[in-house]
């Protein structure tokens, strides 16, 4: 699904964010990316969605070199990748509802369906009662969840999340991670950059460890998580939403 081949990224300022990164993520996998602040986690995710272009090496998405994508193809690549940004990237003068609906408006879906899907997604992240508010009226964690709802609303095959639980309390963090797990169970490939080592360890998924722009560890997923522990079975309508 996604593969990096000797990718390096040097920003215009001269910072070498990634120096020689090679890895592969298969379709349907869930991978955590961790590492110290400034290690290059965000940069790595941005290269996948072509928010930045690599300085060297190749980033392949679905077997295609995204660096070679024609300019007018880029929007269609991005529609297949839901991105949750570390700094939310919400539109402060648009209501929560419109923020979440944006990808569907762009796709030109009928309004009734947009409304239904946005409500369902907001319900999932526990913000249904806030749909008429503007992002600056929300707490950091709530804004984060609006970002999650927007990223998944278009049902992309790949979701990239940059510190999706950075502003959440432990209870909410676990809940959001559970959403990602369920999302992954429906076949969506999920990449999550996170500092929350304890949470990551408890989820037993594959972990890529970055340090100074290089992968220093690639820990494979451990034995399948006991799905009976801690969470109930999937409800049918939840499965349909994701």
């Amino acid at each position, binding site marked *: 699904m996604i593969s990096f081949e000797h990718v390096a990224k040097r920003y215009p300022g001269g910072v070498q964010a990634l120096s020689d990164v090679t890895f592969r993520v298969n*379709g*349907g996998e869930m991978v955590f990316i961790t590492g110290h602040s400034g290690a290059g986690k965000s940069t790595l995710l941005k290269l996948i*969605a072509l*928010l930045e272009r690599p300085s060297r090496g190749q980033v392949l998405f679905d077997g295609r070199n995204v660096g070679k994508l024609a300019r*007018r193809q880029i*929007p*269609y*690549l*991005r*529609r*297949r990748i839901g*991105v949750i*940004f570390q700094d939310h*990237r*919400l*539109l402060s*003068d*648009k209501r929560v509802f419109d923020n979440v609906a*944006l*990808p569907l*408006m*762009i*796709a*030109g*879906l*009928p*309004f009734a*369906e947009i409304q239904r899907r946005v409500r369902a997604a907001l319900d999932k992240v526990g913000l249904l009662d806030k749909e008429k508010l503007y992002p600056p009226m929300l707490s950091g964690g709530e804004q984060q969840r609006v970002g999650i709802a*927007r990223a998944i609303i*278009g*049902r*992309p*095959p790949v979701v990239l999340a940059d510190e999706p639980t950075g502003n959440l309390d432990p209870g909410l963090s676990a809940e959001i991670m559970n959403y990602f797990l369920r999302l992954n169970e*429906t*076949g*969506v*490939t999920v990449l999550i950059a996170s500092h929350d080592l304890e949470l990551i360890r408890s989820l037993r998924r594959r972990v890529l460890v970055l340090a100074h722009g290089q992968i220093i560890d690639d820990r494979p997923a451990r034995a399948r998580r006991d799905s009976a522990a801690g969470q109930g079975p999937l409800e049918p309508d939840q499965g349909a939403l*994701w």
Partner: protein
Amino acid sequence: MVKTRNLSSGREVSGGFAAVRAWSRRHAFSLLSSLGTIARHPLASLMTFGVLAFALALPLALHVALTNVERLGQHWERLDTLSVFLHTDVGEEDVDRISSRLSTWTQILAVDPISPQQGMSELSQQLGLLDAENLLTENPLPWVLEITPAVGFQRDTLLARLEAEAAVSTVIVDLQWLERLDAMTEVLSRLVSLLAVLLALGVAVIIGNTIRLDIQNRSEEIEVMALVGATPAFIRRPFLYMGLWYGLIGGVLAWLLVAAALLALDEPFRALSRTYAESAGLLHPGQDILALVVGGSGLFGLIGSWLVVGQHLRRIDP
């Protein structure tokens, strides 16, 4: 995963009809979003509309003024006559004799004698002196022959022949100022065309600049739209609509301004035209002119925003 993908893509591009519907929905979104932007910043929008309206009202008002002056000029052309003043001692029978003789001349189409009494009442009406006739014990006016020359008359020879008549005191010709008026309206109509071209460009610049500021204010939004997969065309569209709105609404406001001015001027103008024994009101701009103003300003708004948006999307390059 395959299932999820089919679900979403299947809804978005299943067949031409659905694609057209999606396309029209995207347009509706852009349209509403552009109107929303205008509504969200009422003061700024109002000021832009005001500037546009004044800019467009100027050539439109000039055009309207010109058409009205031209029509008045047509009334004045009836004055395209020679006024032959006879000596004060020429009496009515002599006048009849002279008029019938003059009307046989080939250069003369008609002779219309005006008695001193007629002349006095006309004069007092024009000057607003109601009872001038009664005030003056003796009418000082002579008989006047209003002569309408035949088409293609030789002004100088006719004048010479008239002046040679014994009964004639003076001949008054006032044609040159009509020619001047014609030349003047010609100059003015050129001016209106020039002004229209300049201000059409002005409209494009004003709207382009407004859109440029708007793009700067919304560069974050543009970036986010690009991040979630909006095509450049989709990003550009609300701004194009906005340019169109600015142009159209500015044009309509300009028309309203001119219409209000015409309404205010209508009564005095009627009073003026009554002095020409006419009671026509002011001519309003024709529908073709209004369509030209409103449509043209919409078009130039579109062009202005097109140029600016293209420039900026390339510069922001998300």
